[in-house]
């Protein structure tokens, strides 16, 4: 799946997107965040407050208990500040 990062999540991780293949035990958005946090210091820093992080699957907002099965594109970002 394609994983995208925006704003300070992107800056902390140091990349805007990457292709990832998490193990099948990673079933939900929250579990994906936990799995990503183990990938290195920069990920741990980006996801240090996981409840703050917002997520979208295939360009729709989702809650963190949403399953990631079948997702093509998952994005992580801080609360939005547009308008």
């Amino acid at each position, binding site marked *: 799946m394609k994983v*995208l990062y*925006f*704003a*300070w999540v*992107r800056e902390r991780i140091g990349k805007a997107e990457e292709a990832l293949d998490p193990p099948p035990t990673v079933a939900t958005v929250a579990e994906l965040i936990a799995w990503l946090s183990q990938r290195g210091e920069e990920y741990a820093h980006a996801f240090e407050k996981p409840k703050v992080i917002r997520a*979208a699957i295939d*360009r*729709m*907002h989702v809650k963190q208990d949403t399953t990631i099965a079948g997702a093509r594109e998952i*994005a992580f*970002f*801080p*609360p*939005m*500040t*547009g*308008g």
Partner: protein
Amino acid sequence: MTIPVTIRLQQADFDIASEIAALSRGRTDIGAVVSFSGICRRDQAGGEGGDAIAALTLEHYSGMAEAEIARHVEEAVARWPLTGVTVIHRFGRIVPGENIVLVVTASTHREAAFQGAEFLMDYLKTRAPFWKREEGASGSAWVDAHDRDDDAAARWTKS
């Protein structure tokens, strides 16, 4: 019935009067047009007393931003008898005094136009994937989201 809907994300500034005119030109069914424009302020988002900002840079999630705005326009059209909607949101670097966002709603009467515009702005603030970064004399920082914006959006689900 389908109504004219314009949604644009762009780096360039826009002309508010032209956008309003474009929505109502040649039509005799529109009795009310409401427009909201959001403008880049000099003050920091955190409140008063801070250093003046030199610019804002808006990052957005291309593809999702358009889709999310379109979903909210659809909801507004379902809730109020709107006869035209224009939403323009800029991204990139914007200096104080420049436009950031424009929402224009048209209807037969004012109530729907006012409420539709306010609903769209409240949701743009909290659900459209845009992030502001402030550039100041002593560096730059991401703008924090405000609870008051979440509260403003939440009131549309209470009634």
